[in-house]
């Protein structure tokens, strides 16, 4: 495999930093030019989440959140082209507004894909840093997660490729 997958190698993708912690754990960090209160709201209220969680190619069509320890959430995105639907869900373990959320994340229909996520928000000079640590149960779970996440993302990429090919063949 490539060295980029080795633990401890930090990579910058756009404004996001990815640090593999171990074979089963990865940490994303990203700074936002907004106060923590607002970032927390944007990440936990359905009326906000629908604006950013999906993509142009696969917008969010359902968003349910029961924001309390033991409460569950469910996100559904639907491909514009083809109409395939991908659902993601999880349970909240801990909520400390506006600074910390501990939750599970899984791809619906793939019970082996479960991940444990700890999201931390810290504010400095009016800017907020999101730190998202994601731990998979096993290598199999990690690969299953990666596979499904990529299927959703790959679908969008195929559409872009299709568009590009259509433009080129004119």
């Amino acid at each position: 495999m490539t060295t980029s997958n080795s633990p401890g190698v930090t990579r910058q993708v756009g404004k996001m930093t990815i640090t593999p912690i171990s074979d089963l754990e990865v940490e994303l960090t990203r700074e936002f030019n907004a106060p923590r209160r607002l970032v927390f709201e944007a990440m936990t209220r359905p009326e906000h989440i629908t604006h950013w969680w999906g993509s142009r190619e696969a917008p969010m069509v359902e968003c349910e959140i029961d924001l309390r320890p033991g409460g569950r959430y469910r996100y559904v995105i639907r491909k514009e082209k083809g109409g395939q639907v991908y659902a993601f869900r999880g349970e909240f373990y801990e909520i400390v507004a506006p600074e910390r959320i501990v939750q599970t994340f899984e791809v619906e229909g793939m019970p082996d894909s479960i991940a444990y996520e700890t999201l931390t928000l810290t504010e400095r000079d009016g800017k907020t840093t999101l730190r998202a640590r994601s731990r998979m149960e096993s290598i199999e779970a990690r690969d299953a997660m990666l596979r499904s996440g990529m299927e959703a993302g790959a679908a969008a990429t195929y559409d872009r490729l299709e568009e590009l090919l259509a433009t080129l063949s004119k």
Partner: protein
Amino acid sequence: MTIDQLSGTFGALADPTRRAILARLALGEATVNQLAEPFHLKLPTVSKHLKVLQRAGLVTQSRKAQWRPCRLETAPLREVADWVDQYRRIWDERLTQLDNYLAELQLKEKDRDDKQ
């Protein structure tokens, strides 16, 4: 690479013995016997793993030489690395959208405060 092929590659990589076999082949060609040795595996077990790796296109076995060496094919691994980058891009795109949305929200809040 189709999603099915990609699933095949991931499936093949999901096993620690198969990853070790690939790591050995990254050093150079090897026979089935040579592959079995460091893992203390029986030949049929190694053959079984090799079949999975061959189906995923990660390993080819020469038919020319009598000792039929196995070799690593790197193209599918490169594809997987590309797709891992793809996954990272999903998150980058998602968080960039959140960033833009937060800017919008702040403008709205400012508007509302100004009017009051």
